[in-house]
């Protein structure tokens, strides 16, 4: 992937979440993917320190299944979310793997309350045949050591 294709990939990832196309978003992930939102600070050891989210693919599937179930009351009504993605940088590049870092400003609106999250997102993209998949998405929230109000929407 050249830089332009990488940009399009992370923009698409954000757009799928913003538009609630969770099944399409899930299809971006590799079978052994990790979706990780650290708690406390960005560089914790997730085997020794609790995280806000640490999902493997079955966890992501369950999370989405719940959101689509019609009984996830914390998303009734569903949040409206806008993501602004910028500062896209390639951190490392090999033939079959690219590490990409972005800055994300996420604005969520739920029942008159607007919440803003700033985060540095780290993606590990891996080539699988003709496709590139997300092997890891790590969302380093600026507020990850603060008290968070309910965050039932995907980050």
């Amino acid at each position, binding site marked *: 992937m050249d830089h332009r294709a990488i940009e399009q990939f992370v923009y698409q990832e954000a757009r799928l979440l913003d538009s609630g196309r969770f099944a399409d978003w899930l299809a971006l992930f590799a079978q052994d993917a990790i979706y990780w939102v650290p*708690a406390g600070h960005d560089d914790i050891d997730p*085997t020794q320190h*609790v995280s806000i989210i640490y999902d493997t693919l079955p*966890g992501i599937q369950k999370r989405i299944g719940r959101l689509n179930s019609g009984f996830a009351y914390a998303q009734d009504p569903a949040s409206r979310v806008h993501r602004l993605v910028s500062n896209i940088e390639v951190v490392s590049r090999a033939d079959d793997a690219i590490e990409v870092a972005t800055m994300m400003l996420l604005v969520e609106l739920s029942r008159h309350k607007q919440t803003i999250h700033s985060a540095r997102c780290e993606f590990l993209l891996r080539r699988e045949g003709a496709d590139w998949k997300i092997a890891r998405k790590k969302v380093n929230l600026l507020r990850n050591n603060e008290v968070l*109000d309910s*965050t*039932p929407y995907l*980050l």
Partner: protein
Amino acid sequence: MSAVMQKDIAGLIRRDAVHRSVYTDPGIFALEMERIFDRTWVYLGHDCEISQDGDYKTTFIGRHPIIVARLADGSVTALLNRCRHRGATVCQHEVGNSRFFRCAYHAWTYANDGKLLGVPMPAGYGPSFKREEHGLAKVPRVASYRGFIFGSMAIEGPTLEEHLGGTRKLLDDYCAVSPTGEIEVFRGYQKCGYDGNWKYQLENGVDPYHVGALHRSAVTADAMKIYKEGRGRVIDMDGHGVTDHSDWGPMPVDAGLTGGFNLVLFPNLILLRSQIRIVRPIAVDRTEIYTNVVRLKGVPEDVNLQRMRDQEFEFGAAGAFYTDDMEIFERSQRGLNSSAVDWVVFARGLDREQRQGGYLTSDMSDETQHRGIYRRWKQMMTAEPAMAAAE
């Protein structure tokens, strides 16, 4: 004090209902801080968080910022995190290790046992200034049980063991899940907040009735068996709330939703599966919840890791269960802000609850444990200060 005067407080708790102002009146909240959080035993933390000489953590008792420190002799002290000079907090970190705390403002410096070690340019204070009178204020009583450390702002009153009452056995059982009889916590907290009263969380921590309804999108059919087919009980245990589902066995090592119990230890500690949840009231309509994930000594690390992964999925700010709980706490606050209807109903099981093993208990979906919490609430909120000291 606002609309509800002290003499009226007893009337806010009925046999089968609680008045909405208990959740919405800022005057009631201020009185709760004085009459509950300043008088009873409040959970501060676990031994393992401050295991080494000089370790400390910061926390709160009601509105008081507190430092809990491990001293060189192995004992634990709890200090008010407030410089005796002009009042600034002297410690800014959640956890750390230090033998002294220095206020940044004028560099008054205290030992970690609270003693004022020195002030810059001491001659300016003259001979009448007694340094020993200006140490960090101490939480009058600190005690622990099975590694759970509590503090009380009251000089006198029931001992910790008296306060815990029958729940001591549950704390024993909670530790006994570990093969060595000892528990620890993973590093870090899940920190959550909601715009609602703190007591919703106490009720919800021992409320089997809601699990199949509110958590329909998260609870498995298998786990629902303990509620639908079990013969578990809810218990008013000395004013603390318990749901006992040990008919499905003791609390499992994997912390799954089967046997064991949930415990709401009034006023600020909840033990539930692999969680130590600390309830921090901020305002009448704002609450913060700090949760530790418990790891067991003496089990394979992958078992502990799975305990944490399950809790992360289910609880915390993005948890499959907890987001719906916080949602309902906020909906409750919005509903109860209406003065059109006064009463919140806690009537389940009134006609079938009975005394068993010394405690009022009832069927798994009943509200006996909630009524017990509110009886305790009423007793504390209506006790005069002099009576409280003498009790």
